[in-house]
């Protein structure tokens, strides 16, 4: 008995360790069970059904129901070749978004660096910069959009600023500074000028779409050890050098996260032009299936773009800790 008792700690430790791992693995399944269960029972059927519907033609029966007929890739062909506007909207929308993404990422990084510095009223500025995340989604974005369309249609002869064109303030600022003229004299190529001007005119939408990214960058900046900055300043590095040699490499994982997040966020938001177009198609008679096909096409493009962008960005990333 005594001998066994002496031997057993060694034995049971080994066995106990193995079973703890196994038990932990099983517990892991329990933790993700809610997600898995609802995903399999509710979400996956919806996804399958949506793919199936995009391959079908919908016939509305007189009793109020409807019947699906398998038609193969007909809807996709319709979307790509018969619908004159879809491809055009898609290409212009994609181009706009691809141009917006670097602007959003760079802007949010810049603002995060600014808001990370010690200064008066930092908390107030942080609070203000985060307001668009809370309010420029859902209903508010929808109303802004419909009002902006309206104000394009009727010429607003009265001088009232109803805040409908959200970009009115930035537009006014750009005009006041006569930036066109400024950049025009700098001889840096009209494409670049157009790009910068486009961003400035659209600065409200860029600001309102970079709130979450700014917070993620802020979190990243705060995780960089102050000891590194201290040793840098002892070695006599200037602020500019410190940014490019320390801050930028250390924050590069966040750049990947934010780039991917920006792509997802701006592509799936209801306010982008492709989404709006798909919505108008959905409302049309018999447009349900075409809109399904369109959004699946769109999804594939987004996935491909995330793959490409993620691949490019992740090849430049510096990981401090590899595990």
């Amino acid at each position: 008995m005594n001998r066994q008792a002496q031997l057993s700690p060694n034995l049971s430790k080994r066995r106990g360790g193995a079973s703890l791992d196994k038990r932990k693995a099983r517990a892991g399944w329990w933790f993700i069970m809610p997600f898995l269960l609802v995903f399999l029972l509710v979400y996956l059927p919806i996804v399958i059904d949506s793919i199936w519907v995009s391959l079908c033609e919908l016939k509305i029966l007189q009793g109020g129901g409807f019947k699906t007929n398998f038609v193969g890739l007909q809807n996709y062909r319709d979307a790509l070749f018969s619908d004159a506007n879809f491809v055009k909207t898609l290409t212009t929308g994609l181009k706009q978004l691809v141009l917006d993404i670097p602007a959003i990422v760079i802007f949010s990084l810049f603002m995060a660096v600014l808001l990370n510095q010690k200064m008066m009223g930092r908390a107030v500025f942080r609070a203000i910069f985060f307001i668009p995340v809370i309010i420029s989604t859902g209903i508010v974005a929808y109303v802004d959009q419909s009002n902006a369309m309206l104000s394009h249609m009727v010429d607003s002869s009265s001088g009232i600023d109803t805040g409908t064109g959200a970009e009115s303030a930035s537009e006014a600022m750009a005009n006041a500074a006569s930036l066109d003229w400024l950049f025009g004299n700098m001889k840096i190529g009209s494409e670049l000028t157009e790009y910068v001007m486009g961003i400035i005119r659209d600065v409200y939408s860029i600001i309102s779409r970079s709130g979450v990214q700014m917070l993620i960058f802020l979190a990243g900046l705060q995780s960089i050890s102050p000891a590194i900055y201290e040793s840098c300043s002892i070695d006599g590095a200037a602020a500019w050098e410190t940014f490019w040699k320390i801050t930028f490499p250390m924050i590069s994982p966040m750049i990947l996260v934010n780039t991917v997040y920006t792509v997802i966020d701006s592509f799936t938001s209801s306010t982008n032009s492709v989404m709006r177009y798909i919505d108008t198609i959905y409302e049309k008679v018999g447009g349900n299936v075409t809109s399904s096909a369109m959004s699946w096409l769109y999804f594939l493009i987004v996935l491909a773009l995330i793959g490409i962008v993620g691949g490019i960005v992740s090849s430049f990333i510096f990981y401090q800790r590899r595990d």
Partner: protein
Amino acid sequence: MNNQATNPNAPKITKETKNKIRVEFERTDAWTRFKLKYLTTKFLKQVLWVIFRLVLLVGISFVILSPLLSKIFSSFMGKEDFVDVTVKYIAKYPTLEMYRALITENHYAQAVLNTALLSVFCALVQTFICTLVGYGFAKFKFKFNKLLFFLVIFTMVIPQRTLKLSMFLNFKNFDFFALITAFLKMFGYEGNLTQSIFGINANTLNLLNTFWPVAILSLGGLAFKNGLYIFMMRQYFKGVPDELEESAYLDGSGVFRTFMTIIIPLSVPMMITIFLFAFSWQWTDMFYTELFFTKSSITMMPDIVKVIPKSLIDPYPGQSMREAAIKNTGTLLIIAPLVVIYLFCQRYLIAGIERSGIVG
């Protein structure tokens, strides 16, 4: 060793009382100190930078706040203000009729009540479920962990609109065996397995106009942007040292008990962040509320801005401008409760994200 005594330039230190010493040393005169401190290029650069930074931050804050401000200004305008060319911000005929009409005719109180019920419930459920799932993905090595996490990313990437039609149909005719039915559909089966097996009335399975569809999605962490919350939680828990739980396991605590008593109290700031996100995005959500609440008798937030109150319909030249202002007033009413909550909670919000340490 005895530096103080040997160095004649060293400051003289005298002990005044028990806890107080007095140091006497020669000071350079004020003008030299001023010159060295302030009349340098470094200081000048610093001042310029501070001014530049302030101007930039104030400018951007202005861009963010100005649409909000002009919405607030125009919400007090009377009917005559919209045809008056001289009015830009301050109303000449101030009135509260827009607020009054929206609150009484569009049933604002009812909408707030309904939406608050839905949002609080959903946000609580989503916060808990996303914490649970995020913890599961972060701390446990089980088969298919990576693959299943890819599914979370998948739910994040897929545009909501893609699933609009199918989601509507699925919840209109809810089926527990939908996975099987989805495949049977491809062979021409049009029925509902739950209905035919258990003989349940079709009306019972119609979940539209109830809280069930959003509740079910929330329970699975599949509602609006929940993929992001799970992702944030997972990144947060990856930064929590394993030793914490291991010591709890050694003391004989089970996995779930450790989660409830150690992990949850630890992640409260992060959970508040997620709760705020979930709450405010559910509050202003249009997609689910419009899709699942088809009956007009249930007033939700979007209904406030969808219809112009009858007493304000009055065709005159300024009407289109006025309708835009009415809708904006509606959005102000919608975001008012949110802004109040945000003002109280924004401290937690930023603290929570700072602690998340979202590292790719």
